[in-house]
């Protein structure tokens, strides 16, 4: 049962640098996440997005790296900080911003909101707002893929805080004993919400240090290095697809802002923030690509294209009507109704 044989580490070590087209796609994907969420932040400030929202500014490499590695029919399970993980599967930016704004053009017609983005046709099987809840659900989708012999893999993203809830441990054990094709990705951004994860966790690396307890290989990587995330994702997906069972990947990253809209993140030491800002995954990747000889004009063109896409998405969402009140009580049941009596 114990799978600490370093299969994933070995695959990462053998990974070659992605080709230029792939790297440009990774850059494009991260920029799309970055610019869409920056726009979402602006729309909050204009009170066009209500309620709450949890941005992943600074963590784009994780969504982009996995999104590029996943097969079209693989399953994603996201958290309430899931805008980027949804976008990278090919979901429309207009649908995402429209959903955040509560408009008719929203991905869920305004019935889900920021924390519940979902698109079955893109394999995005939901964004879950209760910590850890989606981990066993991802195991279930993986169980179904295994049962149907479909070759699909479920990828489940979650934060460091999730490693201290029961569902984390139940799911890892369950996935391990049934050898399920699921990849669990812990995005350790150092804070569970407002409290440092180190203050509330008995081990230094909240996911990786628990892996061996469930017979899994401990994998700990720099989550701000999109090439490395991509290589790691490929290794874990290949392993799952070839019947090798689940993986648990801990990626170290940092959110540039607070936990949610209500949180300015002032509990974080200035030096810590400054150090991580230097490791901004988008900025550093741009420099890496320039160093590799990719010309600035190609990158600038991507930036312009993404900006235009965000502008268009915002405009469409702004011009979209509020959802029809007719849908407020529909689709509780499969027959489309919410009827409970005759």
């Amino acid at each position, binding site marked *: 049962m114990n799978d600490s044989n370093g299969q994933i580490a070995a695959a990462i070590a053998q990974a070659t640098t992605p080709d230029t087209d792939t790297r440009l796609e990774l850059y494009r994907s991260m920029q799309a996440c970055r610019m869409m969420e920056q726009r979402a932040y602006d729309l909050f400030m204009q009170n066009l997005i209500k309620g709450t929202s949890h941005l992943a500014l600074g963590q784009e490499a994780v969504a982009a790296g996995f999104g590029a590695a996943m097969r079209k029919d693989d399953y994603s399970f996201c958290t309430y900080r899931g805008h980027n993980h949804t976008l990278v599967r090919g979901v429309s930016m207009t649908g995402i911003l429209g959903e955040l704004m509560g408009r008719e053009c929203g991905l869920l017609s305004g019935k889900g909101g920021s924390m519940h983005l979902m698109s079955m046709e893109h394999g995005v099987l939901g964004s879950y707002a209760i910590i850890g809840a989606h981990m066993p659900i991802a195991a279930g989708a993986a169980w179904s893929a295994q049962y149907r012999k479909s070759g699909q893999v479920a990828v489940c993203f979650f934060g460091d805080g999730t490693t201290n809830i029961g569902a984390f441990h139940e799911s890892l054990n369950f996935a391990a004993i049934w050898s399920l094709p699921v990849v669990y990705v812990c995005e350790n951004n150092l804070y569970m919400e407002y409290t440092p994860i180190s203050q509330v966790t008995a081990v230094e690396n909240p996911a990786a240090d628990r892996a061996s307890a469930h017979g899994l290989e401990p994998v700990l990587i720099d989550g701000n290095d999109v090439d490395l995330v991509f290589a790691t994702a490929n290794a874990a997906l290949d392993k799952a697809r070839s019947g090798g069972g689940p993986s648990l990947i801990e990626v170290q990253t940092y959110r540039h802002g607070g936990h949610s809209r209500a949180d300015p993140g002032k509990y974080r030491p200035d030096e810590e923030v400054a150090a991580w800002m230097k490791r901004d995954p988008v900025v550093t990747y741009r420099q890496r690509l320039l160093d590799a000889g990719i010309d600035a004009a190609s990158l600038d063109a991507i930036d312009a294209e993404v900006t235009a896409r965000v502008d268009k998405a915002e405009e469409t969402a702004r011009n979209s009507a509020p959802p029809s009140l007719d849908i407020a009580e529909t689709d509780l049941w499969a027959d489309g109704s*919410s009827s409970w009596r005759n």
Partner: protein
Amino acid sequence: MAQLSYREAVSAAIAQEMRRDDNVVFIGEDIAAAGGVFKTTEGLLDEFGPIRVRDTPISEQAILGATMGAAMTGLRPIAEIMFSDFFAVCWDIVVNQIAKTRFMSDGQCTFPLVIRSANGGGARFGAQHSQSIENWAMAVPGLKVVAPSSAADVKGLLAAAIRDPDPVLFFEQKSLYGTKCDVPEGEHVVPLGKANVLREGSDVTIVALAAMVPRAMKAAETLQQEHGISATVIDVRSLVPLDTTTIFKSVSKTGRLVTVEENPRLCGWGAEISSLVAEELFWDLEGPIVRVTTPHCPLPSADALEDAVMPSAERIVANVLKLAD
């Protein structure tokens, strides 16, 4: 027809549906090799094998999370939660995830799943293995709630629940597992949302569920024989969807309603039916509505104490007689 026990009807229904549809799978604690702690699932592993009938660890969140994930990706899973009290450790998956996700997703996905569980008192198991939690379940939009009173209904309603495209919580009353009745041998499916009129009378309508149904029937016989009171007895069968039509039709005729609930009093299903009748059928009533329930208190363990608090046929009779005064 064959005589089957309520317990045997569980495996009969699951087997019937697993033979019919390869996408039906079944998981839970001790359900495969051990045949279930109440012996409700014996023979399923032998017939369908360990891929379709699968033992799990003691991990209720994992069991129900996996059930949800499987249901949204093409399977029709059945899960067992050994005692309904254990829903308390996985209620998030049921209430926040399974019940809400179709609605929140604007109808993108369906959840054709069944969660079976041994519910209710009468087995002297004490307060954490005896609860009737149908009232918790009924309060959550997005869950269908079914509780059979006989072996025939176990087979027919469980089959319907498995075929249903929505999540169904299927509560088997554990003190009924040993009871027997004639059960159709061939394919047997009883649609959800149809109450069962077990006895027609003209003076009072007694509405009951699960283990309260045989007690209500016994009370009706006593009322007839000893007091000349003629009672209709309706087995609600499913709380969601709720067959108000059948109940209303009877109450319009008798003018009197008594509900018999095993769950603790506050916010029990009888309160919902009572309020519906009061709002919509007030002028047909000839007397106050009466609810007979277990008190608003945990169930004690000792047989004498447990018997004293759960609604008995005698207590039902006494309440009907008060109404007739």
